[in-house]
């Protein structure tokens, strides 16, 4: 079983303490602000930008914790795709190899109209990325150390469908839950989640335990793949039951104006 160890005192920076604002469409730039990092003033800050569908990560030096010094032109030229996420790293560079003092992963940027004191976009468990998927409607991908729901941008209004169509919700999300949890508890074998862990596997595992009918951890027997699959089924079933998924699908399938 894999466990996450933190021997070095690396600090997880809450997303509420970092704000990133995205500007522009054709030429996207961004600004970064942080508060109360509780890290040494001399810690060197780097901001890394990436998106699903692109292998590229752009890295921007941003001065130090005590003295931010943004680059003059932080353009996201090499990061393609509509859904951009950021990591902010604080590094101790006093020795030849930089050590991480703190890190905030998966920051979703705000739009340019956000209030100045609004915190960063909450880290989504499953960011949605509209891209050209050819003849597929949706797909789960694992890029930049997190799962993404890719949806086909050839379908008009696909983002609205994802947000509010009961049929899409009923037919897609239970399958997505299974796909992601299989990755967490069978592929990556993450079976326990520390309370303060913010890596995506721990977030999803805690989410699964929350939805499990007995709030149970997945079985941790070394070869108990069948038991883990059963645990995943229980989570998906519980999720569907709580959201009355089948009933909502039936309702959505009724012809408009038909009486029930």
């Amino acid at each position, binding site marked *: 079983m894999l466990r*996450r160890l*933190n*021997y*070095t005192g*690396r600090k997880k920076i809450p997303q509420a303490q970092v704000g990133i604002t995205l500007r522009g469409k054709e030429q996207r730039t961004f600004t970064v602000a942080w508060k109360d990092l509780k890290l040494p003033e001399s810690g060197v800050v*780097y901001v*890394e930008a990436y998106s699903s569908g692109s*292998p*590229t*990560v752009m*890295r921007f030096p941003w001065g130090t914790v005590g003295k931010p010094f943004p680059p003059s032109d932080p353009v996201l030229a090499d990061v*393609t795709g509509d859904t951009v996420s950021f990591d902010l*790293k604080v*590094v101790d*560079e006093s020795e*030849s*190899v*930089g*050590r*991480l003092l703190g890190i905030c992963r998966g920051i979703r940027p705000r739009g340019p109209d956000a209030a100045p004191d609004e915190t960063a976009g909450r880290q989504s468990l499953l960011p949605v990325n509209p891209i*050209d*998927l*050819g003849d*597929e409607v949706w797909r789960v*991908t694992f*890029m*930049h*150390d997190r799962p993404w729901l890719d949806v086909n941008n050839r379908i008009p209004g696909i983002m609205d469908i994802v947000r509010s169509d009961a049929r899409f919700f009923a037919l897609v999300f239970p399958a997505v839950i299974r796909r992601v949890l299989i990755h967490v508890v069978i592929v990556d074998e993450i079976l326990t989640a520390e309370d303060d862990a913010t890596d995506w596997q721990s977030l999803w595992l805690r989410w699964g335990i929350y939805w499990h009918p007995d709030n149970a951890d997945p079985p941790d027997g070394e070869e108990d793949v069948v038991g883990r699959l059963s645990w995943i089924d229980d989570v998906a079933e519980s999720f569907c039951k709580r959201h009355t998924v089948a009933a909502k699908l039936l309702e959505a399938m009724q012809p408009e104006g038909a009486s029930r």
Partner: protein
Amino acid sequence: MNASLRRLTGAGLDRFGAYLIDLQADKSLAAPNSLLFDKAYSEQVQGGGTVEEVTLRTKNDAAVYLHRLLGGMKPDDIDRDVGLWSWLALYYFEQVCPVELGKRDPHKPPRYIFEPLNHQRRYRHVLWTPYWILRVMPDHNRIYLNESLTVHGDLVEQTLSRLVNVLRLQGFREVVDLLYFNEETGTYKRGTLSRKRRGSLWPRLVTRVRQLSLTYDVAAMDGPQIIEALGEEFSGWVGSHGA
């Protein structure tokens, strides 16, 4: 003959795909070159360059040439263009699937007809893959590119789709080159892909680098620094020891 860059249309892809299936049964079939410039089966690529009669012996030859040819186009568009890559494979078919003793030795269709949306099979394309490797690995790429264009290879098949997130780290690329490239044979060392051998590229190096990234700013580390941090497990691969 130099010619303007084109892409196969849907009808062209169908015909090329049918040919590749027939070729499995009759390995002496001539390539359907008539598709290349017939407007019913192909169309010109706006903003594309001019294809040349070049000799592409290695993947590196192809990668360098294709970057020159496609330099004016957006990588995002290029990476999704099924017709473009399939047309290029057909245009250079005598080189990517050569006739030897009157017969070809064809791979399966994804080697020639690009499948950009399949995360496993897209790395099988004979021309897109070298092009993509050079883009993602601008340095320390010889372990992937120093090979005949006609060979697909286990290294590409087994590692590319899994390494996509770590290959962007310059230090990681340098580590791969320092540990697993065999200077004498010009290819990767025996055991590089072995699950049983300590310190193999897949899965051990990838796992260990991910662990290091929890402690160190790996993006700023060079190859020797990463190797030192990796510890004893990988020491057997340094220099010619692992060959």
